[in-house]
């Protein structure tokens, strides 16, 4: 029993030391920011705090849906959020977002015109884009000898058990719809059924439905082909030069993460300051450089390494982008997507 007592004492000691070290109280106003994990250069937060004398409570989430459920249920009093396109559309529809006062965000002028007024926020009243990218195929040039131009290659018997798909219903069903020549926002049940049949046919060829581990797998050469987000593709190609990225000719998904202010925010002024701050050229550059995704910021882009700019994975041409579609919120119709996905996966 003496050992137990010592153990308890040791634990209490740790707690005491920790509480001592973390004892910083300050009187500054607070800004609650909710972003994806590892999705900002942390020094930027410190700079903002110093310049504006505002304390930033910086929290992170892992999926749009986690964040949405939490904010929707009143579980977070956040001031700035970083959702993706279709989630923004949904939040606008449900009245969860405040209109931005663009007079307070003058740096918005640096955002490229082609990234303004997109379908998820047609009048661009609620959001300022933060990062963007596409969905495509990354493949190992040593293992894939056939030309990779179409989504069809993910259905090729020759690469059985060499294919990694995304474990995400919207993305996986979306590319299948694209391959079949449909819109990835379709509400047509016949088209969805066709996608289901295709996915079921593909299942024996798929090595796994993966999340972020796709990066480690492709870098390590564990698979030949994978569906990935473009920002990650750039990183993978840097780690393993055998890899190449393609946006298939049938078109693909174009995605955005943007900054928005929820109606629950009690500090809109500071929130707009923060958004404006992140749109400053050197700050936007810092974040782009750290994250490695594509920036919608015209001036920050000019500061980037020319080699990266010429990489069509990171900054594809206008022709390729024209083939891409943005995800839209499907509302209750999402149930059909879920049913199909369950039927594919639970087989």
């Amino acid at each position, binding site marked *: 029993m003496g050992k137990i007592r010592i153990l308890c004492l040791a634990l209490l000691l740790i707690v005491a030391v920790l509480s001592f070290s973390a004892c910083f109280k300050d009187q500054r106003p607070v800004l609650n920011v909710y972003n994806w994990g590892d999705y900002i250069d942390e020094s930027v937060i410190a700079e903002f705090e110093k310049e504006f004398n505002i304390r930033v409570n910086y929290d992170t989430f892992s999926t749009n849906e986690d964040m949405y459920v939490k904010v929707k249920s009143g579980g977070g009093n956040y001031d700035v959020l970083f959702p993706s396109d279709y989630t923004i559309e949904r939040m606008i529809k449900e009245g969860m977002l405040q209109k931005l006062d663009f007079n307070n965000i003058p740096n918005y002028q640096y955002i490229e015109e082609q990234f303004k007024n997109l379908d998820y926020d047609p009048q661009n009243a609620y959001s300022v884009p933060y990062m963007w990218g596409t969905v495509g195929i990354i493949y190992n040039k040593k293992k894939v000898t056939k030309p990779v131009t179409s989504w069809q290659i993910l259905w090729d018997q020759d690469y059985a058990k060499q294919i990694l798909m995304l474990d995400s219903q919207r993305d996986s069903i979306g590319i299948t719809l694209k391959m079949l020549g449909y819109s990835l926002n379709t509400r047509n049940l016949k088209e969805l059924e066709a996608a289901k049949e295709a996915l079921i046919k593909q299942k024996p060829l798929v090595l796994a439905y*993966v999340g972020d581990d796709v990066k480690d797998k492709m870098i390590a050469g564990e698979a030949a082909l994978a569906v990935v987000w473009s920002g990650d593709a750039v990183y993978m190609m840097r780690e393993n030069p055998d890899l190449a990225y393609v946006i298939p000719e049938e078109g693909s998904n174009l995605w955005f993460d943007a900054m928005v202010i929820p109606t629950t925010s009690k500090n809109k002024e500071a929130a707009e300051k923060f958004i404006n701050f992140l749109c400053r050229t050197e700050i936007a550059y810092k974040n782009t450089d750290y994250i490695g995704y594509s920036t919608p910021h015209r001036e920050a882009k000019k500061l980037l390494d020319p080699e990266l700019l010429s990489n069509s994975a990171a900054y594809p041409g206008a022709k390729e982008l024209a083939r891409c579609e943005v995800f839209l919120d499907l509302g209750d119709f999402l149930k059909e997507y879920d049913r199909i996905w*369950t039927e594919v996966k639970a087989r």
Partner: protein
Amino acid sequence: MKSKWLSFPYLVWMLIFIFIPLLLVLYFSLTIRTPDGLVFSFDNFRRFFEPIYLKVFLRSVYLALISTVICLALGYPMAMILAGNNFKRKNVMVFLFVVPMWMNFLLRTYAWMTLLERQGLLNTFLTFLGLPPLNLLYTQEAVVLGMVYNFLPFMVLPIYSVLRKIDRQLIEAAADLGADQMTIFRRVIFPLSLPGVMSGITMVFMPAVTTFVISRLLGGGQFTLIGNLIEQQFLFVGDWHFGSAISMVMMVIILLSMGVLSRYDKEHEGGGLW
């Protein structure tokens, strides 16, 4: 012992933090969303019994059951060794049993992937020995392995804590009466350790049924379990009603089967487990 009041704080706690949320889940499971608002309905439950969802449920129970049996088979001898008298520094050894679990779950699971993948460490080792590499990752076996790895301490510790204080005199008496090692184990040690075994089974089986991260990562998302299904309903589809119904049915089935199990155990007081 007149000490029922000791459980009073817990009863209050349970009422607030377990019972009220349970009512909430029950309410959700019994309603559906219609254009006119929430309507009372059994539809959610009916939907659960569609073949596709039943299949997922049965698979979850099956995998959890296998993991529990393996945990018991691996864990019981380990608990005996730990509790054994001639094992020095047993407290430290027990502690060392738990420490790996203090590392983040995701990191541990990713580490398993590094071990199991095609060109992973295990296969490198096999090739080194001149053996053919195995397809280990993204199989049902990998999912079971992940569960066993994660839940093993929950089996070993309760058994260990019970075995530790089994009356030595009983064992010596049995030996004096001519019982051999096996008989002593079957007739004396194991029956006496049964409460610990039951606790262990409960703490392994129940959470194992609802786990979803393990199947997603080690199973490569190919083995949808009931936990994945429920998560999907709550987060991606936003159908809290169906999600609640799945969890309600699942909880009732599991509790009923555990109840049957424990009743059986009572009747055979001191007999076998099943």
